[in-house]
């Protein structure tokens, strides 16, 4: 009986050592590990957070479960910065890859399965596996204030999304999105924009956002 208890405890400890974070149910790091962690901010476990010392999170931001904040400091580059503003809601299964700079403004809503990246693997050498090749020079991603990003959106490196933009489900954002614009599609194109003179949303000319 007692031997069973001890061996089960030992097995559990070994599992924790083997699996690391996964053994603790992918617990996000404590707030003091972050560069800044606002009051009322919450990262719901299970979540995977790398290099929290490079992550700034504003007040009352909620990041829901199974998010992967993949911040990758590299020896030959300045430290990456992932800045998430205040009062954001970032939903489940998000992956944010940050090797340079990713900035998300205030009061954004980011839906499930969104992928935001400021870099990608290079594939110059056809002989090497791509995963063994270095990351591309990161190009900063900036997402403005009060942006709504729909389900399963992909935001590519170097993109700036203006304030109050609205991004439809399943879009792939490869070019900058001006403020107050509705974009959808793959590749994303503007479908509506806000006309200040008429104080109304009008149909955008059928062209890719520039």
């Amino acid at each position, binding site marked *: 009986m007692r031997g069973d208890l001890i061996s089960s405890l030992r097995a559990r400890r070994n599992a924790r050592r083997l699996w690391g974070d996964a053994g*603790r*149910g992918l*617990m*996000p790091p*404590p*707030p*003091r590990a972050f*560069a*800044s962690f606002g009051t009322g901010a919450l990262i*719901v*476990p*299970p979540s995977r957070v790398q290099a929290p*010392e*490079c992550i*700034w999170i504003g007040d009352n931001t909620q990041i829901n*479960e*199974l998010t992967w904040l993949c911040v990758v400091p590299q020896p030959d580059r300045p*430290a990456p*910065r992932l*800045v998430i*503003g205040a*009062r954001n*809601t970032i939903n*489940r*299964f998000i992956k944010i890859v940050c090797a340079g*700079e990713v*900035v998300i*403004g*205030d*009061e*954004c*809503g980011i*839906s*499930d*399965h969104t992928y935001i990246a400021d870099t990608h693997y290079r594939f110059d050498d056809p002989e090497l596996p791509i995963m063994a090749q270095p990351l591309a020079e990161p190009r900063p991603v*900036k997402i*403005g*204030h*009060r942006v*709504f990003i*729909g*389900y*399963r959106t992909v935001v590519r490196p170097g993109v*700036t999304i*203006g*304030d*109050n933009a*609205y991004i439809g*489900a*399943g879009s792939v954002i490869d070019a900058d999105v001006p403020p*107050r614009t*509705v974009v*959808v*599609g*793959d590749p994303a194109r503007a479908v509506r924009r*806000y006309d200040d003179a008429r104080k109304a*949303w009008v149909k955008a000319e059928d062209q890719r956002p520039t």
Partner: protein
Amino acid sequence: MRDLEAPAPPPFRLRSSAFGLERIRDRRQARRLARFFKRATAIPPRQAFGAFGASVIVPPARIDAPRFVHVGDRVVIHEYIWISVVQKFDDIVPRFVVGDGTRIGRFCQISGVGEIILEEDVGISDEVLLADTSHHYEDPDAPWFRQGMIRPKRVLIERGAVVALGAMILPGVTVGKGAYVVEGSVVGTDVAPHTVVAGNPARVLTRGFAHLDAGR
């Protein structure tokens, strides 16, 4: 874009000792978080649902208002589903109906304020979005959570249809009997029975294989 400048990187900090007070505090907070997640994603009792047959929902799952969820028999709903079917309009009682023999995969999101209906033997794969509404954006200066929802349009997936991995079904769409929505498509218009649609926006690839349906 204003005031988005990040502060300078933090100075080097000494790690606290392994048995320090902070570590105890961290562990307590981690336990609290885990408890929060467990409670938020537990399956409500079957009496709480609008109807619940001989079916199973695999935890963890988020079910915001189970009284609007009607689940038939032989249904399997896999883990990490989010059934966000809630009442937002006084004159609309929302309804999410899952017919007999339907299977819903993992990581799906059902977001509705009106009717979302899955008929019998529907196959919903992983990471699928079924939405009959979206957030308003009428006010160009307000964040999404200060604006209401757009009035819902019914989403109907008819008998024997399949929605493959990562497909998105937008408001007002009817997916016909025995239709197949290919992986990753974004469906904004009706899909005729026995057609295969793919792409963003979804277009018809193949139509008319009704002879396959003769046995039903």
